[in-house]
């Protein structure tokens, strides 16, 4: 019985691999989840979109499979952030130098802030990313340019609505209280867009461990500024933030930098994640 099950699994895997190549749709790759979500909105099902690095995978441990590379060699384009999110991009690009795939940097036209790769956390930047994706898709598939433009306009409406929601909510909070304590320094773009200030326990690198003095500094800061809630990231380890929360008696809330789908693998969309983030930020800094 077991053997039969194994054989069936193999056959399914085999047919599964073949099925991939049968699709007539153009193949588009995105380097990580935020771009996958935005590109899916613009494409509206016209292309097959594949996401490369799964959520929660440290880029250091990530390695493309032969299927990834083969898929990339006959894809039309790869959308990547161009801000150093993808440590593997140069090598993969060099290895695919002799194929037709083009690498599209979605950060073009966005003003970079230091080494922070999280450009998409400002909805205005998300709009610019959508613009780049729309232009590229329209170029690849001229026949559907109008359709992509329509999808783009729908996205812009949603993103502008999100932007004004943020402005209105955070604008109601006095400047000196607009402080968020976060696990790692991922929210520079979000903070600059809405006059927030982030106090990060760790630097840009989410994997390092903070020094005891840094933890103490954060604890003192929380006490001195009477901060009620601090934020952790679902994809990271909440241990450090939990320690600080226990130490100061604040509440712990999630803040999602939208680097991947939920831990149960369920797909999320940009706007709903950002709305949930806003709700949590308001719980932390707004009136009780």
């Amino acid at each position, binding site marked *: 019985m077991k053997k039969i099950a194994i054989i069936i699994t193999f056959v399914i895997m*085999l047919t599964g691999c073949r099925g991939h190549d049968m699709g007539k749709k153009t193949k588009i790759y995105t380097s990580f989840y935020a771009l996958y979500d935005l590109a899916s909105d613009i494409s509206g099902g016209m292309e097959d979109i594949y996401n490369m690095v799964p959520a929660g995978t440290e880029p250091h441990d990530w390695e493309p499979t032969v299927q990834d590379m083969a898929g990339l060699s006959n894809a039309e384009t790869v959308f990547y952030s161009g801000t*150093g999110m993808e*440590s593997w991009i140069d090598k993969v690009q060099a*290895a*695919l*130098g002799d194929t037709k795939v083009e690498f599209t940097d979605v950060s073009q036209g966005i003003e970079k802030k230091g080494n922070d790769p999280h450009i998409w956390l400002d909805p205005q930047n998300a709009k610019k990313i959508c613009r780049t994706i729309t232009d590229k898709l329209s170029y690849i598939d001229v026949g559907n340019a109008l359709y992509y433009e329509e999808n783009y306009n729908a996205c812009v409406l949603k993103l502008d609505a999100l932007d004004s929601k943020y402005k209105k909510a955070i604008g109601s909070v006095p400047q000196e209280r607009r402080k968020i304590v976060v696990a790692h320094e991922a929210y520079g773009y979000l903070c600059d867009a809405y006059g927030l200030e982030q106090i990060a326990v760790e630097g840009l690198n989410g994997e390092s461990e903070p020094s005891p003095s840094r933890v103490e500094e954060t604890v003192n800061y929380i006490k001195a500024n009477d901060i009620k809630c601090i934020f952790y990231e679902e994809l990271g380890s909440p241990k450090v933030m939990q320690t600080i929360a226990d130490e100061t008696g604040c509440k712990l809330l999630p803040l999602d930098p939208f680097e991947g789908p939920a831990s149960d693998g369920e797909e999320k969309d940009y706007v709903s994640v950002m709305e949930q983030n806003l709700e949590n930020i308001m719980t932390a800094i707004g009136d009780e």
Partner: protein
Amino acid sequence: MEIFTLAFMQRAIAVALFISVITPLIGNIIVLKRLSTIGDALSHAGLAGVTIGLCLSFSPVITAIVFSVLSAITIEYIRRSFPNYSEMATAVVLSFAVGIAAVFSGFVKNSAGFNSFLFGSIVAISNFELITVIVLSIAVMIIMILLYKELFYIAFDEEGAYLSGVPVRSVNLIFTILTAIVVSIAARTVGSLVISSLMIIPVACAMLISKSYLQNTVLSVMFAILFTLAGLILTAFYDLKPGGTIVLIGICVLIVILMVRKR
């Protein structure tokens, strides 16, 4: 089958063949010197080198190679101080390298840039890396052939070699530097997991069936070629991670040989 006509796949196979020849050649000596974990230690030394390079805004590729070479020489030195416990040397250097990397990474502003210097995968190889691997492989093969007798003697009986006039120190130094360069370049090309395991697992498999040192060397190279090619072919049809698959195939073969031999 058309997957094998793709350029990246052809480069992967070419690199797999070259790496499979040179790593077991080095691995055979490494195992006899009781330094099996040196691949791991030296690839972590590369990691430490990259962090230092980024902190001092110096080319991380160069500092990685330099740090690996220095670590290898240190291993050689510590090994001489503890003749009967040479595996301690790799453990000490491994800890040192990881410690350096952990402390210095606190000063590295751009963590993504940091990772890009460590990223290596057998299926993502550029033409430049292919040429580097070929040149390196030829150099390693020439040196290993030239020093074949000396290395063989030293590996089995270092004292005896010294007494019969083999320039033990210089041969050891050349071999150590060679190992460090191979590990630091190959780790960035095919990944450190593949490189540190290809040094040892094919040698272990060969040791179970071979009758002489020469036979062992030839067999280990053949095993390494088997693992890497089987790994690439398997991952070409099933969506598996190439590096991990190659290593697991090696381990499976080792287990099979162990079980067959027992009976």
